[in-house]
């Protein structure tokens, strides 16, 4: 009847050691010796997998900003829309990268016929600056004057090879130094040649920001844009010029910014809640089931290790509701054990042998456990929206909850059924 439970427990043991190696911090000191875990880096043809085995924390835990922008794409053809949106993602990512924020996440999203981008900036605590940087179209244009009217030329921000923060050599005020592409340099030379003695307006998003007087023809493709900038503004504009103008205008329709202290506090509190609950559940199980309870608790510890290891392996981005999902799944994880224990007791009362009762309990309980958990998995699937259906939410926190809950259920099926089953076969005689 038994298929060598000891060997199976050995597999479980090996698996647990592996999981533990992933769960522990990457550096640990034992007896004065420092052990360091190397990140996993697999490259196989086109597939490359990199895992540093650190817990990824969501915006609500590390702090940061979540922006949703709506792009004004009405009236564009499907093809143009497509091009504008992918260029938009590109430009926005580029701007943020140049600003020096790592781990940005810029995503396209659409709802009905609205096109959107979602920008997630972990750890940015100056949301205002970030918004100014991202939201400005930054369409740069050099114009010429014909009497009073402004005549746009062919020279735009796209002709600029490189822009940077510089300072005016006369009064030290911040300016944007630009360097044209070879082609742009030629156009600029021609333009200045034709306009000696006239002002040359520089237009940003439809507004003249400066109109320097052209003294002589400018060769060499270098110029300066001055415009009463602060240092921050000049730096911002240089980033925007480098990254390119936004292909379409965008509107901020939703914003959530979480400060760093709130996240840290949340982590601390939920870890405390989890530990208190875990200890209480463990005590409760021992009080109710005695040595059976100890087996369930061992299963619970393994459950914790496996789930955390999976979070790091997949990796799962942990959010506050995600932690709640994990805490909830701890409560649900012992369910399988309870079903089995109760069934076992019942069979024993009827006078069946230990072995027979155990096997019967496993068989019967398994049906209920499987049937019952499917309902929760269905809900988790809808909430997690793994296929990114646009008619459902793509909210990070909710997704976090659904994913941790679903993982919790799957892992608890393994620990609650497979692991405790073999533990009981060995230890309950």
């Amino acid at each position: 009847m038994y298929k060598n439970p000891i060997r199976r427990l050995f597999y479980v043991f090996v698996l647990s050691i592996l999981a533990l190696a992933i769960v522990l911090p990457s550096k640990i000191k034992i007896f004065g010796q420092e052990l360091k875990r190397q990140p996993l880096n697999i490259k196989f043809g086109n597939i490359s997998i990199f895992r540093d085995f650190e817990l990824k924390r969501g915006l609500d835990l590390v702090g940061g900003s979540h922006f949703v922008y709506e792009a004004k794409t009405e009236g564009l053809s499907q093809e143009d829309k497509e091009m504008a949106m992918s260029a938009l993602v590109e430009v926005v990512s580029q701007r943020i990268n140049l600003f020096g924020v790592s781990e940005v996440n810029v995503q396209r999203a659409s709802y009905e016929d609205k096109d959107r981008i979602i920008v997630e900036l972990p750890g940015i605590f100056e949301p205002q600056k970030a918004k100014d940087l991202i939201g400005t179209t930054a369409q740069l244009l050099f114009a010429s004057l014909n009497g009073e009217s402004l005549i746009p030329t062919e020279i735009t921000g796209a002709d600029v090879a490189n822009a940077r923060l510089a300072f005016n050599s006369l009064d030290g005020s911040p300016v944007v130094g630009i360097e044209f592409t070879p082609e742009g340099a030629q156009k600029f030379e021609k333009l200045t040649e034709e306009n000696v003695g006239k002002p040359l307006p520089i237009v940003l998003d439809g507004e003249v920001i400066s109109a320097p007087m052209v003294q002589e023809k400018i060769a060499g493709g270098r110029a300066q844009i001055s415009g009463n900038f602060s240092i921050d503004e000049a730096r911002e504009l240089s980033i925007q010029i480098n990254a390119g103008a936004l292909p379409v205008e965008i509107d901020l329709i939703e914003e959530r910014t979480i400060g760093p202290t709130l996240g840290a506090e949340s982590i601390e509190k939920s870890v405390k809640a989890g530990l208190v609950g875990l200890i209480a559940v463990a005590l409760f199980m021992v009080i109710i089931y005695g040595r059976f309870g100890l087996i369930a608790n061992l299963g619970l510890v393994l459950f914790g290790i496996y789930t955390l290891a999976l979070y790091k392996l997949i990796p799962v981005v942990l959010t506050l509701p995600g932690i709640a999902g994990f805490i909830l799944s701890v409560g649900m994880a012992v369910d399988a054990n309870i079903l089995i224990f109760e069934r076992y007791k019942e069979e024993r009362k009827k006078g069946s042998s230990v072995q027979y009762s155990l096997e019967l309990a496993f068989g019967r309980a398994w049906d209920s456990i499987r049937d019952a958990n499917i309902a929760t998995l269905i809900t988790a699937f809808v909430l997690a929206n793994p296929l990114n259906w646009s008619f459902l939410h793509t909210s990070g926190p909710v997704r976090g909850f659904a994913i941790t809950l679903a993982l919790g259920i799957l892992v608890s099926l393994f620990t609650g059924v497979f692991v405790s089953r073999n533990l009981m076969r060995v230890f309950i005689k």
Partner: protein
Amino acid sequence: MANQEDIKQRNWLRYTKLYFVISFIFLVSGVYAIFSWGLPLGLDFVGGAIVDYKIQNGEQIDSLKDKFEEIKIQIEQVQTSEDRLSIKTRTLNNDEQKLIFEIAKDLGIEQLSLQNVGPSVAPEMIKKTAIAIIMAGGGILFWVAIQFKKIIFGIAAILATAHDTTILIGSFAILGKFFDAKIDFLFVTAVLTTLSFSVHDTIVVFDRVREIQNKHGGEIENVVNRAVTETMRRSIINSLTIIIMLVSLVVFGGATIRWFAAALLIGAIAGTYSSPFVAAPLYVKLSRLQKKLKKK
């Protein structure tokens, strides 16, 4: 020996009326609360802005309020819990957000978070929520239907689930009225989780009903009584472990997810109660009804 259990088994169904009265009271007060006070919809569903602060004393609250008045942004609602202060206003534009940021800086108060939801987002959230509920609900329904080929099982399970969901939403109408609880998308998540909880527990009871029916047969009352007796301990113990975790989360988990945890807790309690005391008696009633109809 084998029949000893049968004798010990309690007649749970004797109190069916009492269960229905209890459920009726809860359902009516919940529905009354929903219709008279409305649902306390949060930012996700109505739009607007919420700014959270960490405050040390009451004076800071007053000075914040004064400053908001100075910049002419009307405060719609103020909430405090522990050292947390939340101010709700209409949707803010960029400049207004800058002003608010400056205020906190000037007063030396820490601005913990800012959420700003534009007016176009709310209707969309409501639509998406409806779709999520329909999909999850429909999925579960479908699952229950193929699980228990007998339609009565499915109807009883669904009615029990509707019972739990109504109680949960109703209690939030009450909590919203008296304790400023808010319904946001996380609450919807809790409702959907309750849905699956409730079905989860009911399936365990019905599985047992089916098993006993197949094995021993007999009068439907006896079968159900026996199934309820046999699953009661499991149901209570299992729910207690979940409740322990959730209570711990409500008490220690911090203000940000307190209402979410509370919603899950109410859902878990209702879900546990409804399986033996709503779904099982309903199943019996429905079976009898079906028999009567067949005879005619």
